[in-house]
């Protein structure tokens, strides 16, 4: 179980769980890069690194869209269920469905993953500060300085 998810989807849902990551300064833990992940979660992070933003040559991880990866034993059958907490830079993002399907499909194809789902989160809000150093370099090469 990773500690990077802002909320635990298995826990009893109460409004309080939202308070924690809204006010708890979790922004400091972002961007999440999976550097401490191991086993299956590390394999999932590797796949996520390969997925690029549809408009710019930058990994969605380096863009700071991924807030966490959480693998739990599958409720039925073998393998693990993986939940990816992620956000989008813009609520009106026209590539939303494309990007979310790509994430669930590619993570779902990782060996050992029984089911992959995305939990779309909007708090904390994505900001430029969530772009990693690698992401800044990729954007610079693309012609964007941030």
């Amino acid at each position, binding site marked *: 179980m990773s500690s990077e998810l802002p909320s635990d989807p298995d826990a009893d849902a109460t409004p309080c769980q939202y308070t924690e990551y809204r006010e708890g300064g979790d922004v400091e833990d972002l961007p999440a890069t999976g550097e401490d992940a191991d086993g299956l979660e590390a394999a999932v992070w590797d796949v996520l690194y390969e997925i690029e933003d549809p408009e710019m040559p930058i990994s969605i991880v380096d863009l700071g869209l991924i807030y966490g990866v959480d693998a739990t034993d599958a409720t039925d059958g073998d393998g693990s269920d993986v939940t990816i907490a992620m956000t989008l830079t813009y*609520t009106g993002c026209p590539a939303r469905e494309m990007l979310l*399907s790509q994430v669930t499909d590619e993570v779902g194809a990782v060996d050992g993953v029984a089911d992959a789902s995305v939990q779309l989160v909007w708090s904390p*809000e994505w900001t430029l500060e969530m772009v990693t150093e690698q992401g800044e370099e990729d954007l610079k090469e693309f012609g964007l300085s941030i």
Partner: protein
Amino acid sequence: MSSTAAAPVEDLDDDQREAVQHLLYRLGDDEFVAAERYTEWQVRAPTLESDLALSNIAQDELGHARLWYDLLQDFGYDEPDLLFERDPETFRHSTMTELPFEEGDWSDAIVRTYLYDVAEDLRLEALEDSSYGPIRDRVGKIQSEEDYHLEHAESWLDRLASDDDGQRRLQEAVDRLFPYALTLFEPTDPDVEARIVDNEYRTEPLDELGEEWLSNVVPKLESYGLDVPISEDGTITSADLPPEIGRDGNHMDDWESLYDDFTQTYRDLGRTEATTLMEDPS
């Protein structure tokens, strides 16, 4: 796919579920229908910049509608239920959002976005401390994308008010739109509305939001030399409202044609589900 795997829907009793849903419908439907109308200006606005600006505002509002509809999906609805196969009489938007533009009248678009965006800012503030976490969590993101909407409307108000013709057009737009704008603060149902406030899903009652809105927009419009069609003491009664307020499902005939327009492709293609932009990658 649920967008919020940990939504606390299960913690609500039936009355609370109804209250949260009414709140989400009025938020989502306002945004969606307002955006549908705004897009009619695409390639028709007076300048390229204003065309891009209003189109972009429409895209923002569609994004915000999606954030609210996502939360309704947590109650078991899917996109066709919420939009493309929904009974048009169950939509809860304010009738100002469905009202057709006066043909070719840019001042209508400007006054409308101004009246709407002031109201939207106030209602988002009243959701910042919502007791329903998933609503509260979306407010900041939406606010961050709303900043320039008012700036756009106000800069155009300045320009239009600077000559007699613009002034006359603004006055006509205010006269026409103001009664409809008041429906933004009408309840979907008085009992359910009381529950929305009692449970602090929204922390301010509609009448207080309406008063704040009036104290904001009336002096502003008057500062341009415009008359605002309300009584001297500022009291709003049902006589100030149009026959159809929208919130209660009672809509104008224009809504039917707008609904037919945005569902036409879905019906023509014989869809039974909302499609994605492209086939899933193999």
